[in-house]
């Protein structure tokens, strides 16, 4: 499958994706619901996205946006898969069964944002200490040991 066929396939499968896909750069963004994420990831892996580049998250206040970067060595294409989970109950299916690279990446997202990955084999903190309280990359994170930079610096 080359990149033109990939685009046609994705446009048929995911109509919202089509305007966001650029053939020139071999790059696209796919916005899916959190319940469909695992199915979409499996679909994309079957299409040839054999590499999970990274997993990260963004704090948008009411909800977190999860960002997955998938890459295909054969097609020389990359795609972002984005999904949103509510802040009250941040849960998402793990893609560790599709790409083993997701293991540590999802642990880091759990460490920094507190998003729980269902089906993850070893979901515990990876960078911070095990007894750490809170999730530092959340916008409302507070820690009394932080010294705020004064205005004049």
């Amino acid at each position, binding site marked *: 499958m080359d990149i033109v066929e990939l685009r046609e396939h994705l446009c048929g499968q995911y109509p919202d994706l089509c305007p966001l896909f650029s053939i020139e750069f071999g790059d696209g963004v796919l916005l899916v619901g959190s319940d469909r994420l695992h199915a979409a990831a499996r679909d994309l892996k079957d299409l040839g996205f054999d590499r999970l580049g990274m997993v990260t998250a963004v704090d948008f206040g009411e909800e977190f946006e999860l960002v997955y970067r998938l890459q295909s060595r054969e097609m020389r294409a990359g795609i972002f898969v984005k999904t949103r989970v509510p802040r009250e109950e941040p849960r998402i299916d793990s893609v560790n069964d599709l790409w083993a690279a997701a293991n540590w990446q999802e642990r880091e997202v759990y460490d920094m944002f507190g998003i729980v990955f269902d089906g993850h084999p070893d979901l515990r903190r990876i*960078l911070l*200490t095990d007894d750490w309280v809170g999730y530092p990359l959340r916008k409302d994170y507070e820690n009394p040991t932080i010294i705020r930079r004064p205005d004049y610096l």
Partner: protein
Amino acid sequence: MEEGRSEVAGVDDLAKALEHTPGGGVILTSIDAIADWARGYSLWMMPMGTACCAMELIAASFSKFDFDRHGSIPRPDPRHTDVMVVAGTITHKMAPAVKRLWAQMPDPKWCIAMGNCAISGGIFYYDTYSVVRGVDEFLPVDIYIAGCPPRPESLQDAILRLREKVRAESISPSRVRAVEGVLPLPGDPLRGESAAASEGSDV
């Protein structure tokens, strides 16, 4: 020997002292002098490199700067080392490991805080939740080297200054000699008053 400085300063001085000794085969010295001489010229380093300062620390060991000539060689085992060079940012998660490595080093031991991160947290002082603001929060630091990162020359200066400090120490903790160029540390019971009291006298 030189007045006011009874300890052996180096191999050259040792050779000179040998010639001035009647008979030539005997040197009279104090145990302190010979112990400090040995310690000062074999300050083996525990390279606690955690960030970019470690690159300068590594460069210091190689041929251009060649710290072997000072007797300072990096050893991977803390039980072989005398001076811990903390080169880099220490996070709260790393701090227990550093502390443990420090505890594994045999006495006498010294600590060099290399670079701004090891001194105070450096650029991570403000707005950071994960970085220890200076290794002196949990280690007794002897020498601080400023820089981000410092050049190997700065580390060389620190080793030479540390040698002066080592030569001011005694194998007996109650006897501390004052050596020119080393200031007594305020608040340090071993080096504060007793060092000032013995200043000028050759203990």
